């Protein structure tokens, strides 16, 4: 059961990104998990509320996108679907294949609420603007 420790690690990542983005709340967390990642999406979902309690993502929705398992065979120069314990080429049956999708354990996307609403009406307007997101109230 390493899903809980993975969830705690996820929370560290989310807190860091939320701080960088000046978010006040994390609304949604999207993960991509493949069947060869070694983590069980269901266990991750159970562990999530425990790890998220009291943090910025406490009320966030956890969305887990299951990734398909596909292998690439160099001999055939082709991809095929595979099963976790049978990663052979679907065309020639050879085992010199490479997993191209299915071993991911990724934090794909976050949906955030930023602090700009809270900042409006504040006395100092020193929010650091980046070149592409300049905004004038």
């Amino acid at each position: 059961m390493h899903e809980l420790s993975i969830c705690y690690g996820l929370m560290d990542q989310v807190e860091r990104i939320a701080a960088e983005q000046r978010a006040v709340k994390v609304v949604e967390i999207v993960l991509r998990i493949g069947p060869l990642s070694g983590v069980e999406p269901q266990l991750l979902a159970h562990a999530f509320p425990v790890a998220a309690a009291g943090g910025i993502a406490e009320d966030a929705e956890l969305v887990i996108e299951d990734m398909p398992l596909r292998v690439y065979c160099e001999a055939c120069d082709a991809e095929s679907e595979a099963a976790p314990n049978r990663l052979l080429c679907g065309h020639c049956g050879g085992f010199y294949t490479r997993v191209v999708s299915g071993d991911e354990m990724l934090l794909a996307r976050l949906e955030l609420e930023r602090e700009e609403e809270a900042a409006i009406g504040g006395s100092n307007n020193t929010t650091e603007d980046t070149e592409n997101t300049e905004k004038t109230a």
Partner: protein
Amino acid sequence: MCDTCGCNVTDGNRHLLQEGGELARTRGGRDAVEVLEGLLSANDHQAAHNRDHFAAHGVLAINLMSSPGSGKTSLLEATIEALGDELKIGVIEGDLETENDAKRIRDKGAPAVQIATGSACHLDAHMVHHALHELSLDGLDILFVENVGNLVCPASFDLGQHFNVALLSVTEGDDKPAKYPVMFRSTDLVLLTKSDLLAVLDDFEPAKAEQAVRNLANPAPIFTLSARKGEGMAAWLDWLRDEVARHKTALAAEQTTPIDPNHVHDQRHHHP
């Protein structure tokens, strides 16, 4: 420019605001941020750092994984006995509790540090790094990290090792690689252990175990041995000798930058 009618959107920044863009807006004025970062990035960062430590000392690090009771410690005892004069070996032992395994290794004359993980079912790169502060790597040729006996969780955590070695004892069943594909897919060498018992077990066929490993698209070598009886140890010992030699040659070839002794660690991690 305003945020209401969209006049602040220019050709230069439009791509950031479109769906999937870094600053794309979603319902209710929320912001979606693309991340695409591994969930184990903190662990992977630490593992890379451990690898730098190993490189700085010219040590080959091997992560031993298997079920509990498949003979990891017995294999290490026999290996230290056989290679003791030839290669200097150090061991990090991972178990939930007790110092028993580290004691067994020390009794064979090799330095060993025990990590008691408490309730954690695997070692991670941070635990190994912590143990490295208690074990001098100076003069070592091989560092074995004996992971917690478990065919599931240890497979997901990079420790900074150069090789994964998975043990499968013949009392466990020849279909274990099919049942635990994540572990047996990622291993660089498979050892079928307790081979002396094959004579009395009619339900374990080494060829079937090998087929199950090949089905995972893993071309790793597979050796059959008994550490207790000394059978089949030569192939394993030769593999170690070859890999140590290859590792030292590779390290000598590439200029490695020594690690800063005052390095700062800002990675946090938790365990239940």
